[in-house]
């Protein structure tokens, strides 16, 4: 068991470092989406009886991050981590457990009443779907995969969305997507919109995205591509309107400051995410992290400042960062460049002037020399100040 826990820890560290490394290597999008899908198809620590199950789950998130959403839904339901997390392994003929059936519809695909406010399913349909899902199990001593046990499956007739049959697992995706495709498309489109643009959806853009999902039979890649290349994505009204998650902030800080990734940094990120209440692979519940405004409150915001401050103080890389900027010798230019590096939105001249005064702290501007021994501590004051600006919490 102890061995298992340490493996779990390593996989977590691996996620943080791989996420960062991949962001450099140009596969950042897939990695960001994998985190997004973790927050969507939630499973959690206690369901990873074998660390291998976490690895399988994570691999699924990455494989389908930009892939075929229908296939994704199909595979996620019978990945061991999910079968354990939402009690699929206990869902047997005669003894149905409706946990996964409910969340599959409510949280993973169509929502309770998307998009028109009329219910997408009834309690009876949840119970019927649970019966369809019966028969899957895992055996931690035998296999890394889920197994189907025919005698545990309910072979009776089930009625879902007005259709009756002796449905089995392969019928789940067709049943959902043939009868509720509009609702699913809207539900997923809105989630993608909130990931990339803003938590408050633009109904017309979400409608367009939903149409695209339907047109492409729930292939994610063309939809994400269209969204990211759309004029809407670059509109001033939506730029910089997303509130960073702790993961966004902690990994972003590493990227912004050009730190070399080593074990110490990964350890620091893991500790930071724990303190900032976003434990990767341990979302608070099946709905994932509440996100948006729930990320920031009167204690978590100061905790972010403390994290950033402690991180920068430890790392001693700001002088090196400055020397990589286009003109480190002109303090006004350097300050503006650093502000641009850390903040999503350009500061006005008053703010920049104020920042220059902060970094100079009485030193005449012409005496600024980034090679001075005091540069690191001067820049620490400046950058810590920048990171405490409310602007820094937005992306």
């Amino acid at each position, binding site marked *: 068991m102890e061995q298992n826990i340490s493996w779990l820890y390593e996989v977590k560290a691996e996620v943080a470092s791989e996420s960062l490394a991949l962001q450099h290597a140009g596969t950042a999008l897939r990695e960001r989406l994998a985190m997004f899908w973790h927050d969507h198809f939630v499973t959690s620590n206690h369901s990873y009886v074998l660390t291998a199950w976490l690895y399988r789950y994570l691999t699924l998130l990455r494989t389908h991050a930009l892939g075929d959403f229908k296939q994704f839904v199909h595979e996620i339901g019978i990945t061991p981590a999910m079968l354990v997390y*939402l*009690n699929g392994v*206990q*869902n*047997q003929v*005669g*003894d*149905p*457990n*409706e*946990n996964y059936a*409910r969340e599959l519809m*409510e949280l993973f695909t169509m929502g*309770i009443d998307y998009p028109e406010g009329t219910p997408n399913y009834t*309690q009876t349909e949840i119970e019927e779907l649970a019966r369809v899902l019966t028969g899957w199990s895992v055996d931690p001593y035998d296999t890394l995969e889920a197994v189907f046990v025919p005698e545990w499956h309910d072979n009776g007739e089930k009625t879902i969305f007005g259709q009756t049959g002796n449905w089995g697992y392969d019928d789940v995706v067709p049943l959902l997507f043939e009868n509720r495709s509009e609702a699913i498309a809207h539900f997923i489109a809105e989630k993608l919109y909130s990931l990339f643009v*803003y938590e*408050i959806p633009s109904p017309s853009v979400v409608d367009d995205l939903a149409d695209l999902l339907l047109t492409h039979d729930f292939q994610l890649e063309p939809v994400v591509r269209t969204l990211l290349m759309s004029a809407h994505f670059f509109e*001033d*009204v*939506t*730029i*910089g*309107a*997303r*509130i960073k998650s702790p993961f966004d902030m902690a990994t972003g800080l590493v990227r912004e400051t050009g730190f070399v990734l080593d074990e110490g940094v990964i350890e620091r990120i893991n500790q930071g995410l724990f303190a900032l*209440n976003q434990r990767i692979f341990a979302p*608070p*519940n*099946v*709905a994932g992290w*509440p996100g948006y*405004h*729930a990320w*920031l*409150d*009167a*204690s*978590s*915001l*100061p*905790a972010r*400042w*403390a994290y950033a401050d402690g991180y920068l103080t430890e790392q001693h890389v700001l002088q090196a960062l400055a020397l990589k900027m286009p003109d480190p010798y002109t303090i006004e230019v350097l300050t503006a460049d650093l502000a641009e590096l850390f903040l*999503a*939105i350009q500061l006005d001249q*008053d*703010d920049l002037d*104020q920042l220059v*005064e*902060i970094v100079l*702290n009485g030193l005449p501007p012409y005496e600024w020399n980034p090679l001075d021994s005091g540069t690191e501590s001067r820049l620490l*004051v400046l950058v*810590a*100040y920048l990171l*405490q*600006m*409310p*602007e820094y*919490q*937005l992306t």
Partner: protein
Amino acid sequence: MCDHQHHSHRAVALEQGQAHDDDHAAWSRRDFLMQSGLVAVGGTIMLNGTPVKALGGSSLLDHLAQLETDRVLVLIQLSGGNDGLNTIIPKTNDLYYAARPTIAIHENQTVYLGDEYGLNPAMIPLEAMWGEGDMAVVHSVGYPTPQLSHFRSTDIWTTASDSQEVLTTGWAGRYLETEYPEYATNPPDAPPAVQIGTSTPLLFQGAGANLGMTLVDVELFLEIAAGGTPYDPGDVPDTAYGDELAFVRTVANDSFRYLEAIQEATDAAQNTAAYPVGAMPDALAACARLIKGRLDTRIFIVSLGGFDTHADQANEHTNLLETLSEAVKAFYEDLSETEDGDRVLTMTFSEFGRRIAENGSGGTDHGTAAPLIVFGKDVNGGLYGDGPDLENTESGNLVFSTDFRSVYSTVLQDWFGLEEATVSSVLGGSFEILPLVGNPIVTGELSETPDKFVLAQNYPNPFNPSTVITYTLGRAGRVRLRVFDERGRHVTTLVDEAKAAGTHRAHFDAGRLPSGVYLYRIEAPDGALTQRMTLIR
């Protein structure tokens, strides 16, 4: 550099060392209010240049009168859906045992709550509170057309909406808005509501603002929020970015705003009871400390998660109920040390109960009505409402017998002393009041004859180190209540704001002042009065 007139956003003390910090320390909330346009001029409060009276009759002053209680409500959210039938066990009901062949709790294991019901044995720490009449159980609390989704049902419980209705404000937020009608423009010195740990975003959301403050770790908060000054949430671009920037700035301001009050309360009290291990007990201990330290906060909420017991629930549910019971027991022991137990009502709630019949996994699926437990020295202990009816069920689920809003109404009306009409408007309807509260605050028409202007003798007197000064105003208006030492030197100002006609109280904490005679003087529209009090260390 740091020109207070022009630079709207400054961060915490990283700028220019000690002198700058001192400058900012002197830049108080009052200055902030002056800048934001809210200033008391003579006897009239001005809100952005408009006399408050013009904003809606005398409602502001009426509402101020309602703050005359130091009663506190503590909510314990049992999140995930607590299995009510295995919490308050219908120990003589054969249907219960038939529906739950493997997880039913046998009669002889239960803690006696009368002939028909027993407590889960894990809740034995509560036996003494039950025996002393400090614990009430309301049976089968729920609402019509129950929702079985965690998230919808949690929203319903926190917003007090109907089953099909979606509200964007919380019942506690709406209540607190009646108590703090000028919250957005003139926030109080202490947060009206505090949640410790996990967040329940809608609960304290009012129409104009969220009146709750979240504290994950009180000590950490105090350490890192020290030395902050306000940002301007008004000066932002008219874009989504601007909206969110305003939000973050407001959060930053909140974290500075209540620092002083939370620091004072934390310094003034210690926990003196042994709490069990865990995040929820820690949170409850933090509540106790803030309450004992007399933080002027009406509502606290803490959360205990893990009640979604779909499988193998026996051990899990036992552990949860044990944690809950030990924590509540410690909480009241802690509060009783300072007699604060008398002014704290604690109530559990959960989004739903669970299915009557156990499922095939030794667990229970999502259900409907469930009992709710209320604790407090001032509670009329006992069982309330009709017990669970296992015969007349709906799709295998219990039919509720008491509407959850009935419990909320009772708390608002009898515990907080809100007028009936206001309770109805907060909860969107009129619900039965349960005789749960031992000493309900009786509300009625405000007296037509004006009160006499009185500055009463402080109590206790002599005192060490804190005391309460009570005064009565015949006329509403600006009140200043100040304390001087024997030689007439100003020591502190206790009140400097508009107050309604009627009786008010002010707390005075002498802190580190030396023993001696002190004077306190009130200036109000009725005139001025002075009294003496004695501090003996």
